[in-house]
């Protein structure tokens, strides 16, 4: 039960933190867009066809399932739930494979 609680608390903290960051960045992006400052501040750096702020927001959203998968793999391995750990590892492998495809 304690291991379960630890996994839940860790997952909760990570999702909450990233979600707060995403919402804050999105609100910042909207404020900058409305005040026409985004172009001056962020458009000079472009990644995958997006400005830095949009890229960071999307990257963080994508990081929510990735980071909780990593936590689950670590915690399942520690608690000897090998089937769950391997299954989650396979899921993470698939996600990273898709990310690699985008980068390449």
């Amino acid at each position, binding site marked *: 039960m304690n291991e*379960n609680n630890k*996994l*839940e608390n860790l*997952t*909760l903290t990570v*999702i*909450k933190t*990233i*979600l707060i960051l*995403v*919402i804050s960045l*999105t*609100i910042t*992006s*909207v404020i900058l*867009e*409305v005040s026409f400052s985004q172009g001056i501040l962020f458009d000079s750096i472009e990644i995958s*066809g*997006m400005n830095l702020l*949009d890229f960071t*927001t*999307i990257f963080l*959203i*994508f990081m*929510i*399932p*990735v980071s*909780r*998968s990593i936590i*689950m793999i670590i915690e*399942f391995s520690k608690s000897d*739930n090998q*089937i*769950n*750990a391997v*299954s*989650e590892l*396979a*899921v993470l492998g*698939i*996600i990273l494979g*898709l*990310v690699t*495809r*985008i980068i390449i």
Partner: protein
Amino acid sequence: MDILLFVYILSTSFIAGIIGSLLGLGGGIILVPALTILFDMPIHEAIGVSFIGVLVNSSSSSLVYIKNRMTDMRLSSILELGAVTGSIIGAYTALLIDSNILSAIFGIVLGYISIDMYRKLKKNSEDNNKESRSDDEREYYDESTNEIITYSVIREKEGTVLSVIGGIFAGLLGLGGGAIFVPIMNRIMKVPIKVAIATSSFMIGVTSLVGALIFFNNGFIDVALVSPIILGIFFGAQIGSRINKGIDKQILTNIFCLVLIYIALRMIINGLEIEVLNL
């Protein structure tokens, strides 16, 4: 992006977030038809941004479910493998399918979901899985009865294989897939309905991520729409979960079943390109 369009998309996502949260849906079920019917957006682009909305909605609702100790993470890790595989198949299939056919498929699936939702409401389906037993006992805290409920998960292999189907629909149509994952867990694996909904909500994060990555790679996610969708869905879901208790769910579900059936028919008609007197 035009400010007026931003406000329209924000409002639509906000409503999708509230309805999704009130009815236990991902939000994509409202977002995709709204973007295609109201904003004349190509269905592939609507599905692409819907994945982002579903991902945000799933993360937001998972916070509540995990906090209430209702999410079965072990079960989720097993089913996710099948769901992710299905989501890849679904997303790549969606990219190959003509938008009219995709619209018709969306309409049919939406029709099925709304009829199923209405049927469940009529049956007033109560949880009958609290008594299922195996060697591997698990538990969750039921806030409504203030007690710890013990349950067991059976037929894990079958569940994993069937979750591929849920994943296919999630990847194909930009929905969460909860309409399929929940019955698989509840009816086949004998998981209590509350745990099934919480676990499905948690899993949807991964299936929508996979769909989003594939659509993003193929240029079907309009980055300009991401901000209003994130804000709308997030705040809509937060408000939906807060007003949830004070609303008569039976009346609400009845109304939305009718609305969803109307949307389903519109999507089918659009897909089949039938000219109907300005429906």
